[in-house]
């Protein structure tokens, strides 16, 4: 932001045009990639994205059938079951941490709030955004929003609205970071003022649409295997989104600690292990609640009659291997204060959430059919494309915006040269 500093130094107040031009130049300069281009990560994701974009073009030119294995019997595949339903569960970390830090005022987790909100926001943009690929007529996606056709009795109507509103909330929650990056102290102050409201509204919306994603499947009582169908699906989806979100925060920290070493502030570095253990405690609480709800269902629906069947074994595999085992491992990790084990268990928990969401939406859905759905290689490839693109944007933001450091004050008239100065300020204050 050298030019603006010059203007400031000259003593003249910058005109709006100057500031706007300056901001545009700054953003353009920031858009350029930093660091080495030909890293293995870049090459692999680059190939994935390029080929994936071709598949997306094919999908829009010839219809869904050209790239997917979807059929009249299986209208929803992994683009819904994995990208949207699972992706949104993993984005749950944002509302959980916002609740813990902004409402319950647990300052301990403050250093990771920004990155979690960023992760949540990007997850919604990309994974809920992937919904557009799956819609047959995506240009009509605005119909339930602009009000020419309100399907008020539809759970999907609720979910669609909540996605939209929650994306706005998460952007508002993250926006002070953007304001810091652009060095707009006034805007930052205004946005900070909005954030408590955004957090409260965001938690409410998350409660409803995390459970709403489960409620979607209430309409398929004869199609989902009785071991997975329950009137409690909404509650299960909500409770599991808590440990899904928390485990994703732990997984994300596992990678960012390695990949973005130089971007991480001292505070976070020092507190990392203690934060991990805290997250593990949160996850274990939610896991216990989840096991309890599952148990109630098991008794209420007399589910034991299905246990001694292939689907029953599959169910036990999910529950014992990916719910009960992680709970035990988390407990062990907390007891022995072992952050490594917490992180490992987070991976196991996340795998369990993927398994559960895929079971409800794809695997246990119409388990009785002779010709079953399995994703085409192009469906998987496009999913990898979405993930790769999300990682690119995530990395771009982390490398430019003060995500891992909390700046308590940006003094007006003393613009930061770059994020390093902000880091310094943060450690100084």
């Amino acid at each position, binding site marked *: 932001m050298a030019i603006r500093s010059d203007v400031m130094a000259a003593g003249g107040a910058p005109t709006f045009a100057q500031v706007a031009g300056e901001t545009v130049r700054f953003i353009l300069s920031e858009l350029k990639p930093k660091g080495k281009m030909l890293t293995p990560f870049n090459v692999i994701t680059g190939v994935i994205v390029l080929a994936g974009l071709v598949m997306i073009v094919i999908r*829009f*030119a*010839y*219809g*869904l*059938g*050209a790239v*997917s294995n*979807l*059929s*009249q*019997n299986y*209208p*929803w595949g992994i683009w819904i079951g994995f990208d949207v339903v699972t992706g949104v569960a993993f984005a749950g970390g944002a509302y959980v941490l916002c*609740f813990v830090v*902004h*409402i*319950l*005022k647990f300052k301990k987790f403050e250093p990771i709030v920004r990155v979690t909100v960023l992760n949540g926001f990007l997850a919604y943009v990309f994974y809920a955004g992937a919904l557009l690929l*799956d*819609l*047959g*007529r*995506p240009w*009509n*996606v605005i*119909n*339930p929003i602009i009000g*020419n*056709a*309100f*399907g008020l*009795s*539809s*759970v*999907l*109507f*609720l979910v*669609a609205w909540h996605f939209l509103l929650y994306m706005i909330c998460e952007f508002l929650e993250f926006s002070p970071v953007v304001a810091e990056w652009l060095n707009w102290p006034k805007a930052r102050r205004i946005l900070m003022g909005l954030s*408590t409201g955004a957090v*409260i*509204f965001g*938690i*409410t919306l998350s*409660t*409803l649409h995390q*459970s*709403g994603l489960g*409620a*979607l*499947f*209430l*309409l*398929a*009582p*004869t*199609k989902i295997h009785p071991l997975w169908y329950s*009137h409690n699906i*909404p509650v299960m989806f909500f409770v599991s989104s808590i440990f899904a979100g928390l485990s994703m925060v732990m997984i994300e920290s596992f990678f960012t600690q390695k990949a973005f070493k130089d971007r991480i502030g001292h505070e976070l570095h020092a507190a990392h292990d203690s934060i991990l253990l805290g997250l593990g405690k949160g996850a274990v609480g939610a896991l216990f609640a989840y096991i309890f709800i599952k148990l109630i269902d098991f008794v209420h629906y007399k589910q034991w009659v299905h246990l001694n069947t292939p689907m029953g074994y599959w169910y036990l595999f999910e529950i014992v291997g990916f719910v009960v085992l992680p709970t035990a491992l988390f407990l062990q990790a907390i007891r022995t204060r072992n952050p490594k084990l917490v992180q490992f268990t987070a991976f196991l928990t996340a795998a369990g959430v993927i398994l559960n969401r895929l079971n409800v939406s794809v695997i246990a859905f119409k388990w009785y059919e002779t010709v079953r759905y399995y994703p085409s290689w192009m469906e998987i490839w496009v999913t990898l494309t979405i993930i790769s693109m999300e990682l690119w944007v995530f990395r771009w933001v982390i490398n430019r915006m003060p995500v891992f450091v909390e700046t308590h004050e940006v003094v007006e008239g003393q613009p930061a040269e770059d994020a390093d100065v902000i880091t310094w300020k943060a450690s100084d204050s």
Partner: protein
Amino acid sequence: MTISRRNFLKAAGTAGGVLLAGGANPARGAAPQTSAGGVEFNGMLIDTTKCIGCRACEEACNEANHLPKPIVSFDSESVFEKTRDTTTGAFTVVNRFPNPKDPDKPIFVRKQCMHCNQPACASACLCRAMEKTREAAVIYHKDRCMGCRYCMVACPFDIPRFEYNSPTPFVWKCIFCNDRQKRGEQPACSEACPTGATLFGKKRDLLEIAKTRLYTEPDKYVHKIYGEHEVGGTGWLYLMGVPEEKLGLKTNLPTTPYPELTSGFLYTVPLVFVLWPSLLIGLNYLIKESKESKETEETEEKEASHGNPE
């Protein structure tokens, strides 16, 4: 074939008081026979014992809906060799099933949209592309549809069909010839039916006819009207000579109208919207208060301890 008033009275007369009592005192929780506006629902009675598998209904449906002509002509019986399903280009199909009572006389059963009293598809649709008319038809507004296919996930009969190989796809299914009904005509398929296996009329009347047949010919029929209670009642009803599981009809359907499966969840939405923010604001305020008072206490204590030596 429509039912004439005279035929109906004749049929009703044979059943006598039993029938009238049955009609006047519907079982508790029985499906309503009228829409919210008090309009009598239209319906269709399929008597599988009368169907001869001529596929006239398929042909009439194809013409009335301007669907593409099939590769195998409507006269050909070769289509019966395997069980067919409805497609984006065939809203009704007739299938052949072996008759356990008489192997020489196979049973023919139609499949198409059942036009539920409270359709799952319409309650699933977030842009009201699927809509239940007051007269009974579940119709599709192509201009509203966003192609999410939630109607297909929700439909207990697996009826809506999606055009997977089109860049601008629609969802297709039988719409009970809604336009013909509006003009005062009966649907194309029932008009074409030569045996009365597909019978159009007011649903209330059709139920009574069906019951009359069950009572007067108890040996011929399974004592059940398929669609009377399934998923809260359907506009199309089936009479069967053998149990429904032998006729390719869905067997495990609940009697709950599908919209009720999600209405409980939807009712909690406004509650959460009121309760959550108030609880969160309260919690936020309380915790802020307690933290602040703790901090002032601490600073006061510090000051006090600093002050002691002096």
